[in-house]
């Protein structure tokens, strides 16, 4: 499969990339690892006339953990997320999730920025970013702004990103020490998108759940922040009744399509199973 023709640009700075994007207009696309965009270009579902490769922009790379905030540059690869011991100790659910994405070769190239900015409901990082209440940093010629991951996704491949903007980083508060976490993903095989997946982050204080945040992957045309599901856990001892209420609240917001992964009802059921298992695992890890 041969993609359509395009002109290739590799700017050396973020400013240069932003001005290129402004001058080339809406027929230009930025490319990070390209492992979402290139397959779409091969299918001619995307036919950009200009491709702006961000790989030489050092400002978009790296993980910074300080003053209770974690900032990850958009061009940081999944493999780099997995390899960072600092990130694993501050926020281990990132590594757990990244390891469930695709395979080693794809993770060497695929980036967190591409994963969250593309708007593909099958991608795993968007739901995780919603569970972490992350902000996305968007930069355009008019300056920089932040959009919450919970507000960013409008429909499949439609996001709050405006023409001319580049997603430069994701940023979130370091989860509380001793927090419980789990990302559970049901998939048919390695490399597949989720039949359904759930991210759970919670804290337990003296036997009572004091905070809980749950989000779902690939059971709707956007990632789904399951606010009511998280609220069902807060104040409980994570007893059977509370967990069942959270599972039901999560299932209630799903709207999956029937595909090779199963009929819609099955995928909603699996979403509930993933939420239940992720809560149990997160509760066990919390202290």
């Amino acid at each position: 499969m041969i993609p359509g023709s395009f002109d290739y640009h590799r700017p050396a700075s973020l400013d240069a990339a932003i001005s290129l994007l402004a001058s080339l207009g809406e027929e230009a696309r930025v490319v990070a690892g390209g492992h979402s965009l290139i397959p779409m270009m091969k299918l001619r579902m995307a036919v950009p006339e200009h491709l702006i490769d961000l790989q030489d922009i050092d400002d978009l790379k790296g993980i910074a953990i300080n003053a209770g905030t974690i900032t990850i540059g958009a061009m940081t690869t999944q493999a780099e997320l997995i390899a960072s011991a600092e990130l694993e100790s501050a926020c281990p659910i990132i590594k757990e999730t990244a390891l469930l994405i695709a395979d080693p070769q794809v993770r060497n190239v695929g980036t967190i920025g591409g994963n969250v900015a593309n708007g593909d409901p099958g991608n795993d990082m968007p739901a995780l970013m919603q569970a972490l209440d992350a902000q996305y940093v968007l930069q355009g010629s008019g300056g920089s702004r932040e959009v919450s991951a919970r507000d960013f996704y409008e429909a499949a491949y439609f996001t709050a990103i405006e023409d001319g903007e580049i997603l430069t980083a994701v940023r979130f508060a370091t989860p509380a020490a001793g927090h419980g976490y789990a990302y559970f993903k049901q998939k048919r095989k390695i490399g597949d998108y989720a039949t359904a997946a759930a991210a759970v982050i919670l804290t337990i204080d003296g036997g009572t759940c004091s905070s809980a945040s749950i989000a779902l992957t690939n059971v709707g045309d956007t990632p789904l922040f399951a606010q009511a599901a998280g609220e069902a856990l807060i104040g409980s001892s994570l007893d059977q009744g509370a967990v069942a209420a959270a599972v039901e609240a999560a299932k209630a917001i799903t709207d999956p399509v029937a595909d090779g992964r199963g009929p819609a009802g099955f995928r909603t059921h699996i979403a509930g199973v993933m939420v239940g298992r992720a809560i149990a695992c997160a509760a066990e890890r919390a202290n």
Partner: protein
Amino acid sequence: MSKINVRMTVNGTEVEKSAEPRTLLIHFLREELNLTGPHIGCDTSHCGACTVDLNGKSVKSCTIFVGQADGAEITTIEGISGADGTLHALQVAFKDNHALQCGFCTPGMITRGYRLLQENPNPTDDEIRHGISGNLCRCTGYQNIVKAIRIAAEQLNTAEEAAE
């Protein structure tokens, strides 16, 4: 749409060519450089038959544009054996342990195994299976591939100890 000039070091040799930006790295390697070891299998970044080493990392060359690889160092299956044709320990182990049947996935498997053993010189079988999870084989059921990589690891480690 204008052509671009790309330079890269492939199997130790510097190459410079002009190419259409939409050229995928796998096509560039196979058609411009006549390196037909890396195969086109699924063409959708699933099967790993096109795996090459790019700046010290395994990648799927069917999902990388040639411009993205401009300036890179690339190793293909053709660069794994010695200059005199001596087979790499992985190649010997694949041959001796019946780790291939049709052979279509083998260049990708060995190129991936080559990098895996540099990242983790002493992997468990489980780590090998995860390490090659981006490479599909439709013949062998993987048992002998995992075994061959394990045996190659042992031989490379023994050779390294002997050299020390």
